[in-house]
């Protein structure tokens, strides 16, 4: 259903302490943003993808496909950064390398703009691979356990836990409805497609409402009175789980500084 989730539970890195994975990815992410250099971004992206692929045994094809998820945003916003629109009289100051004019305005891309855009592009690529490393190696339940350790309000964590469970129930329902709509020609053509989408959304809504009723009932039957208490599994970690990521971060900082010299 949600492939990221599936890979996270099957990852060979699942046994590694969540603290180590979390620190590793967050440090890398932070350095990527702070360093603001294409070389570091590419380097971190390569490390993250390699670790996820080699150590986590997530198929490379899947990781690369994930990289395309924010593609639309990346392309559109990078386009916006690259493009410059000026009056022709300001033109002399800027070096357009690609331009045209519409309605008396000069539209095009400047070298600076392209440089900026490239930098942001690679930075985004680097950081998103840190994010994917985390979500492809760490089951959501463990991340929520960390949040609990960090004293995030209990209500928020409870709501997260419930939402996480319900997401899969609803997605299964939605997929079943979707398949049976397709079986009856529900998405052939625009008008029937739009009709089917409307039906899908509204019947999913009704189903989720009914589900809430039934789940509440079964919770009541087990003594629910407003508090969701479970046995929490303790997060186990040793000093190495903190020191190793810190060492990695330290080395990366040194590398960055030496590059900036």
């Amino acid at each position: 259903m949600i492939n990221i989730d599936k890979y996270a539970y099957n990852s060979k890195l699942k046994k590694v302490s969540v603290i180590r994975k979390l620190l590793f990815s967050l440090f890398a992410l932070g350095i990527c943003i702070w360093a603001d250099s294409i070389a570091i971004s590419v380097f971190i992206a390569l490390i993250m993808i390699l670790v996820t692929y080699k150590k986590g045994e997530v198929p490379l094809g899947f990781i690369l496909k994930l990289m395309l998820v924010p593609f639309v945003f990346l392309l559109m916003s990078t386009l916006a950064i690259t493009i410059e629109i000026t009056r022709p009289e300001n033109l002399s100051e800027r070096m357009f390398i690609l331009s045209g004019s519409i309605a008396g305005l000069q539209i095009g891309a400047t070298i600076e703009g392209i440089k900026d855009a490239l930098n942001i592009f690679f930075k985004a690529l680097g950081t998103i691979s840190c994010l994917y490393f985390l979500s492809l190696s760490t089951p959501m339940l463990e991340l929520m356990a960390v949040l609990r350790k960090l004293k995030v309000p209990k209500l928020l964590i409870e709501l997260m836990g419930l939402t996480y469970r319900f997401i899969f129930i609803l997605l299964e329902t939605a997929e079943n409805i979707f398949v049976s709509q397709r079986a009856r020609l529900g998405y052939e053509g625009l008008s029937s497609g739009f009709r089917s989408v409307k039906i899908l959304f509204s019947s999913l809504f009704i189903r989720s409402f009914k589900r809430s009723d039934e789940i509440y009932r079964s919770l009541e039957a087990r003594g629910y009175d407003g508090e969701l208490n479970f046995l929490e599994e303790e997060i186990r970690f040793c000093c190495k789980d903190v020191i190793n990521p810190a060492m990695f971060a330290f080395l990366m900082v040194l590398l960055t500084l030496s590059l900036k010299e």
Partner: protein
Amino acid sequence: MTDNILETKELLFVYTDKTKALENVNIKIKRSQTTAILGGNGAGKSTLFLCFNGILKPVGGTILYNGQPLDYSHNGLKHLRRKVGIVFQDPDNQLFSASVYKDISFGLMNMKLEEKDIRQKVDIAMDRTGISHLKDRPTHSLSFGQKKRVAIAGVLAMEPEVLILDEPTAGLDPCGVSEIMKLLKNAQKELGITCVLSTHDIDIVPLYCDYTYVLSNGNVKVEGTTDQVFSNKDALRKMNLRLPRVGHLIEILNNKDGFEFSENDETAVTIAKARRAIINWRDRNGK
């Protein structure tokens, strides 16, 4: 300690839209036995179950637990729900945590036990239902049959005196059905639990149930030991139910084909009993 762990007297339940779900229902659930509640879709079985657990409050009549009328106060309900556990038909409605382990611990946490005890009880319940290996799996990755077991474990962990099961075998393949029923039988033997179950799978009733009620339109239409109920064939058919097929075979042999089974044997509904009936007949007829 009375003989009947649960008893209803002239139970009346009316939904907000004025449909009577239960009317004048008198049911006695015998301690440590398995009672089947049969009935077509919409006969009122689920409503009855929710009344047993105090989730629904009947409009009229009384429910006795251990001879005492149900106490609908906060503490009374808390106590009742610890003693009377329900396993719902769709495990997705019951499993609300993504972690198998957490979900099973939920009821115990509500009982405010000590952590050590809870861990122990959770482990025992997982062991009993054969799901210890699923401990670290997220709920949504389980198969239907596995979810069903987790749901049962979550209720068994609370060590209830009465275990109510709404369609415990629905959606399972034949092998899954017999595994679940065996698991329940074992739990019952070891813990002395009283079981109440509803099912469409008529064939399992004579195999696992001691006493049977047949509901129809919110009324008890037939009741008795399972053998008695299944010998009342015409009544069953009127109720949208049928005989187990083996019972049907014996009936035809007896009524149409001139086999004259003894009175005891002519109502055989399980394979074992039908076998005996036919062997008895052979022996009596000097083969």
